[in-house]
């Protein structure tokens, strides 16, 4: 008798849960920002493992910038200590002002990357009024694969500093066959004053 059966032997109530199975969102790590310049999920640090699952999802919410009207952004590490994986990405956005003065759906050329190594913006104009914040998800597919490029998809909503709701749709790939072993979030200016980012493996 071994494993989960042995762990439950003799129990008439309650249950020791089986280890995580396919199909379950397995929480790997949660970081809570407190005036941090960056939040980084690094292979082998704090239990972060980018090799165990085909699909990883970052959920971020209540992301509050120290600086008003700035970009929330991400970058990827591909073997070195630098977050500089080459990327090609596409971005479009929609927005709507609180006073109904404008709304649109459009491509955002200021947000995409063509074989660049710099950060990928996830959304622009994040406001820093006390109640303003950013939330969204970033899905990263098969980061440990060493044959194919690494696709990612993000959708993010923010309260823009000019009092409008803005949503960004980001898709792209890290154009590398090396494994991705680190993901870093930051603002383009100032610290992440507050917020939570959780990493799940599926």
């Amino acid at each position, binding site marked *: *008798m*071994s*494993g*989960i*059966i042995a762990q*439950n032997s003799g*129990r*008439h109530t309650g*249950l020791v849960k*089986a280890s995580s*199975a*396919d*199909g*379950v*969102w397995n929480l790997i790590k949660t970081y809570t920002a407190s005036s941090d310049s960056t939040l980084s999920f690094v292979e082998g640090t704090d239990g972060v493992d980018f090799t165990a699952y*085909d*699909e990883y999802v970052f959920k971020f919410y209540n992301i509050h910038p120290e600086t008003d009207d700035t970009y929330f952004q991400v970058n990827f590490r591909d073997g070195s200590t630098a977050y500089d994986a080459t990327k*090609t*990405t*596409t*971005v*479009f956005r929609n927005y709507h002002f609180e006073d109904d003065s404008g709304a649109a*759906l*459009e*491509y955002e*050329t200021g947000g*995409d*990357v*063509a*074989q660049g190594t710099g950060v990928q913006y996830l959304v622009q104009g994040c406001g820093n009024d006390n109640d303003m914040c950013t939330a969204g998800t970033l899905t990263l*597919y*098969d980061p440990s*694969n060493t*044959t*194919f*490029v690494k*696709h*990612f*998809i993000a959708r993010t909503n923010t309260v823009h500093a000019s009092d409008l709701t803005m949503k960004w*749709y*980001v*898709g*792209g*790939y890290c*154009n590398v*066959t090396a494994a991705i072993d680190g993901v870093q979030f930051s603002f383009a200016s100032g610290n992440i004053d507050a917020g939570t980012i959780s990493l799940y493996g*599926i």
Partner: protein
Amino acid sequence: MTGIISDNVGRTSGLVKSAGGGGAWTLIKTLTASSDSALSFVDGTDDVVLDSTYPIYKFVYTNAHPSQQSGDGEEFQFNLSEDTGSSYAVTKTTTFFRGRHTEADASNVAYVTDFDLAQGTGFQTLSANNSGDNDSSNSGEMWLFNPSSTVFVKHFIARSNYMMSAPGCFSPFVAGYGNTTSAVDAVQFKFSAGNIDAGTFKLYGLGDS
């Protein structure tokens, strides 16, 4: 003693799994492509469940790679069946738009009339102009809602990212419905020409109770 504990009394190996509960994605089936002309999930075949067991199903495909690139590249596609895979030709009406950005920095977002369907029975394009480069692939997901309903049409929503032949990044958004009140009981993925050289396809079910 009740439930999953009593189910496992006396077992010295193996484990009777607890039933998938509401809110948990249950992995139903994984198919791994290896030069396959198509990959099909058929209810009742090879442990596939695609019936009233779950109200929502999700297909996740990772690194779907075409065996060839002719011209500007192949289309990655799917279709639905209402006769357990004897035919894949459910009538569909769909929309297709995408963001596009080439590695040479040409970009736009656009609706693409070439890839939508208006009461068509052919395969629905999930991505087009796929690159055949060794490191190129598709990754994304498609949700299928309540396929067993015999009252309503069958909605689906897909989002993915892939490398197009330009080369560059395409990020398509596909949505539509199988315009049938028959139950949908099988789903097939393929490229418009050639084989699925590689890739992993997973089918999940999501309970609501």
